[in-house]
């Protein structure tokens, strides 16, 4: 039975671990810190699996208040848990990846002086993420939402001496705050029109709200639901790094690799996808918002993929791939194929965490060299990293049979069937994206593991495979990267999600495919004959041809298409634009308001001006106080005459 104490234990065990590792790090020592943190997350994971069983097999669900946070008038804001299929799946994904990352960290951060602090942060992250996915209301959702942002800030800037790290974490926080700005306004809109922040109450009112209009610019009536949903989605754009709020994610790679896997690939960045899915009862009533979501997702999926082609930092290639895959998930949401989006979220969490941790394993072997031009031929030195990396890459490009194939194919098919505005462009983007994904993934893979050995051996020591604390998580993540796709029958075409996802009949693009779905083998067979498969294969082949057989071609392409290359290298100019216009502009406005507004006008003219006027008046008055008797006598006579004139005449 699902009880409050069970759910509280799941959420609070990592928090307790975090507090002990963080505040008592010195007392418990390194081993104590990682033991207590891993124990906390381990308990969470085990109990989350139990919760998933209760939901999926026994058909239970849960929605209860834990305590009342605040009451204002008739409005009650609460902290509470809601657990249904969507939540249970997220809980398992989050705690599983987190547990793997915790174990991996023992090896990766072994010699770091901030060892206990790191464990404290990643456990705190797990707590925050669980609060986010288990929330039963918007207030707590926002708490979790910002709390994961805080931990992301702390972890990107974990190596606080690195100027690039503390630049990146400030940038990440501020860009996320731009998203949260929209998100908070969306929540305020929800409260105004639904009169509550409780999910169930709000969703029940969604059909009524859908008919209402509001006027933001006088004269134009906008659909309330479209305004609210787009505002909420702006929050998702920040957290899930959709164009143009994607700029923080590549820079977040400044943080240690385990958190790139956990936070900036597998879990936190998918919070936006989760949120929109959770809000499906609202988004369904606004085709405008869905179109907006679809187009933003498509732009991200395609254009961020291009950037992955020219990066040479192993983590940045994977980071751009994450951006592109998040775009795929967003496209699925826009096409109302929420189940497919969340399914891709799950498979992606496994294989992307695997790829990042694999990249970390390579980075350890390379003595913290991250440039793939200085790697190559690592296959024979690092067999486990190699094979798990191959599995991850095949899953990423959607090779039939691997997890990513099932989830990505169902997204592509869903977009194909969708007929809302923008779906044509989105279909084009996700199909071309398959080729791009295969190209950059295997460019990376070949350059790291095959070909000539281009690395510096650091005095004759050959690179070697990482220790078991690193390789065991790789293996454990490789397993679901293969088999998680087999759940497609239940999760995408079945009724696993049940009532936790709401789709209007006219948007139900997955229903049609569900009718034609006849088991995994049929799906794979169908996939082998479809366009995306051949695009993926040609992507891999192109990568092999360009980077293994004719390595001089990329350089010549770069020469030939310099302008294009420059555009890609500058990441379409987003960073420069933000730096000049937003950062520079704000400082300029601040200087003007301060120096002119505060100092010259208010202080200079008004305040000190008043003081000067008083000073001037008193200097004039001083002449009156001359001390000469005849001056005073004259003044008195003048006064008497004036009074007489006034009263008598």
């Amino acid at each position: 039975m699902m009880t409050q104490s069970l759910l509280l234990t799941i959420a609070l065990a990592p928090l307790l671990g975090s507090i002990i590792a963080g505040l008592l790090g010195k007392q418990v020592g390194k081993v104590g810190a990682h033991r207590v943190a891993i124990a906390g997350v381990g308990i969470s994971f085990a109990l989350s699996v139990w919760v998933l069983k209760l939901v999926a097999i026994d058909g239970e669900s849960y929605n209860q208040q834990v305590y009342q946070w605040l009451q204002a008038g008739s409005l009650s804001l609460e902290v509470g848990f809601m657990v249904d299929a969507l939540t249970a799946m997220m809980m398992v994904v989050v705690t599983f990846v987190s547990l793997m990352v915790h174990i991996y960290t023992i090896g990766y951060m072994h010699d770091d002086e901030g060892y206990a602090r790191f464990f404290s942060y990643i456990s705190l992250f797990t707590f925050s993420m669980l609060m986010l996915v288990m929330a039963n209301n918007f207030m707590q959702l926002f708490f979790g939402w910002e709390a994961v942002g805080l931990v992301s800030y702390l972890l990107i800037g974990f190596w606080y001496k690195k100027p690039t790290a503390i630049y990146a974490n400030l940038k990440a926080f501020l860009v996320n705050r731009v998203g949260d700005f929209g998100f908070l306004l969306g929540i305020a809109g929800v409260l105004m029109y639904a009169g509550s922040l409780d999910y169930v109450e709000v969703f029940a009112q969604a059909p009524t709200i859908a008919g209402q209009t509001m006027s933001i610019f006088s004269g134009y009536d906008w659909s309330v639901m479209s305004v609210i949903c787009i505002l909420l989605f702006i929050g998702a754009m920040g957290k899930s790094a959709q164009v143009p709020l994607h700029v923080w994610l590549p820079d977040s790679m400044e943080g240690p690799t385990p958190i790139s896997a956990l936070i900036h690939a597998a879990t936190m960045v998918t919070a936006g996808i989760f949120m929109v899915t959770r809000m499906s009862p609202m988004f369904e009533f606004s085709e405008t918002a869905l179109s907006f979501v679809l187009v933003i997702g498509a732009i991200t999926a395609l254009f961020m993929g291009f950037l992955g082609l020219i990066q040479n930092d192993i983590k940045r290639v994977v980071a751009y791939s994450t951006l592109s895959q998040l775009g795929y998930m967003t496209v699925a949401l826009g096409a109302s194929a929420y189940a497919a989006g969340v399914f891709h979220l799950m498979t992606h969490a496994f294989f992307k965490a695997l790829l990042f941790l694999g990249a970390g394993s390579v980075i350890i072997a390379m003595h913290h060299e991250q440039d793939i031009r200085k790697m190559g031929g690592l296959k024979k030195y690092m067999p486990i990293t190699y094979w798990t990396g191959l599995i991850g890459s095949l899953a990423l490009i959607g090779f039939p049979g691997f997890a990513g194939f099932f989830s990505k194919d169902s997204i592509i098919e869903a977009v194909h069937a969708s007929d809302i505005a923008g779906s044509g462009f989105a279909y084009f983007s996700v199909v071309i994206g398959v080729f791009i994904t295969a190209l950059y993934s295997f460019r990376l893979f070949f350059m790291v593991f095959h070909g000539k050995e281009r690395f510096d051996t650091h005095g004759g020591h050959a690179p070697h495979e990482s220790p078991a604390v690193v390789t065991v998580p790789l293996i454990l993540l490789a397993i679901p990267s293969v088999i998680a796709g087999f759940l497609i029958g239940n999760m995408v075409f079945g009724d696993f999600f049940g009532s936790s996802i709401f789709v209007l009949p006219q948007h139900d693009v997955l229903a049609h495919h569900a009718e034609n779905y006849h088991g995994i083998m049929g799906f794979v067979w169908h996939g082998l004959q479809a366009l995306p498969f051949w695009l993926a294969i040609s992507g891999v082949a192109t990568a092999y041809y360009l980077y293994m057989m004719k390595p001089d071609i990329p350089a010549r392409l770069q020469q030939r298409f310099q302008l294009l290359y420059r555009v890609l290298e500058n990441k379409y100019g987003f960073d420069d634009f933000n730096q000049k216009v937003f950062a520079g502009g704000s400082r300029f406005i601040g200087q003007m308001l301060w120096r002119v507004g505060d100092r010259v006008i208010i202080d200079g003219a008004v305040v000190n001006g008043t003081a000067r006027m008083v000073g001037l008046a008193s200097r004039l008055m001083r002449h009156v106080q001359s001390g000469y008797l005849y001056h005073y006598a004259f003044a008195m006579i003048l006064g008497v005459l004036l009074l007489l004139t006034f009263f008598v005449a």
Partner: protein
Amino acid sequence: MFADFPLLSLIIWLPVIGGVGVLLNGDNNPWARPLSLLISVLTLLAALGLYIGFDTTTHQMQFVEMAPWISSYNINYYLGIDGFSLPLIILTAFSTVIVVIAGWQVIEHRTSQYMAAFLIMEGLMIAVFAALDAILFYVFFEAMLIPLFLVIGIWGGPNRVYATIKFFLYTLFGSVFLLLALLYLHHVAGSFSILDYQQVSLSLQEQTWLFFAFLIAFAVKVPMWPVHTWLPDAHVEAPTGGSVILAAITLKIGGYGLLRFALPIAPDASMAMDYFVISLSLIAVVYIGFVALVQSDLKKLIAYSSIAHMGFVTLGFFIVFRIFAQSATGSGAVLAVEGAMIQMISHGFIAAAMFLCVGVLYDRMHTREIAAYGGVVNTMPVFAGFAVFFAMANAGLPGTSGFVGEFMVILAAFQANFWFAFLAATTLILGAAYTLWMVKRVIFGEVANDNVAQLTDINNREFIMLASLALIVLVIGLYPAPITEVMHASVEHLLTQVSQSKL
């Protein structure tokens, strides 16, 4: 049992008389510090007694004390508290304890006088929140400034005279109008009781004059844009304890005055002028947010941040009329006023903590220039933890008290007008930008210079001071219900008052 015990008088006069006692004991008395601490802690305990004995079900004044003071003019020693004054009194008592601890080692000359000034100021400020007679209020309202001027003027920085005079002229300018308004109301109401003032009928013209008199007096204290420029100067010159009290309590007297006088006495004028006050509040949030971004002095930055945060207080108070106009249900208006109150209390703790953090750095490095710092985390890791925590609270992170008030006011503002919420919510970006950019330049990075390399981490005294503030900021953020609970009845009553026309 203690129904007739004059608890409020005790809380007011214990620190005043105690302060005088500390003062009279001479300046080299080693007992000055522990005695001051004892007095401030006892006052805090007595103030918590108010909370325990407080009846949350009524808006009527509680712990009422009434005695004739100047009977020929019918001026009374008339005290009482409701849900608005109670949290502010506890905040005052708590802040004084912190200030005493903060000045423990730092104030080396005239220690007794320093401690005495804060104790006397504590009693006077609590009296401001408890006074129900207009003249009594006015006397305390003016008297509490004297110790504050002395604190800045004696223990302040090099430019303290300019700052003190600027502060004095600004507030004097406001007080004159306040006195005129209070006297006029006596003429109409026939008594000096503030509660009677709230009952009288007034024409719109009378209300408008009174409204502007109150607005000028209290806007200077809040401070609202554009009468805010005294605050950065005063903060920069004030010693740490002075800054703490200035930020934590003095500004709140402005917000409290609007709540106690302007809104209930002149509701129709308040409604007619609400767009004016809302505009000034939103300018404070946005304009001051940008100004804070470019400050190079730590204290100025926090002072500007205070002004921006106080913008939420005045915004919350004055959007209620628009919310009434938009919807019949009142929960939006309750959210606005309670949010503004929470914002005042939370700001009291967070701003105090921020100024204390600056004080900790200033005591070691004797500079407030951001550029003089960098990489403080390397030598002061514990301090850095607190600094980042309070910075996050200042940036309104959920789970800290800084979030609660802003969240409530933004939610309510949306119900008044989309653009109010839009502009108010820019604080999410601006507040984070100026606070965390400062953190980046001061706390993070490589050790910037030799002075930073020689810093020593906070001692036990500083740890206790910062930890107790951090705990409160966290508890209010996670569980604000106990604070709003004491306000409900008073807020409902206020909203009834402002929604009934006096014409």
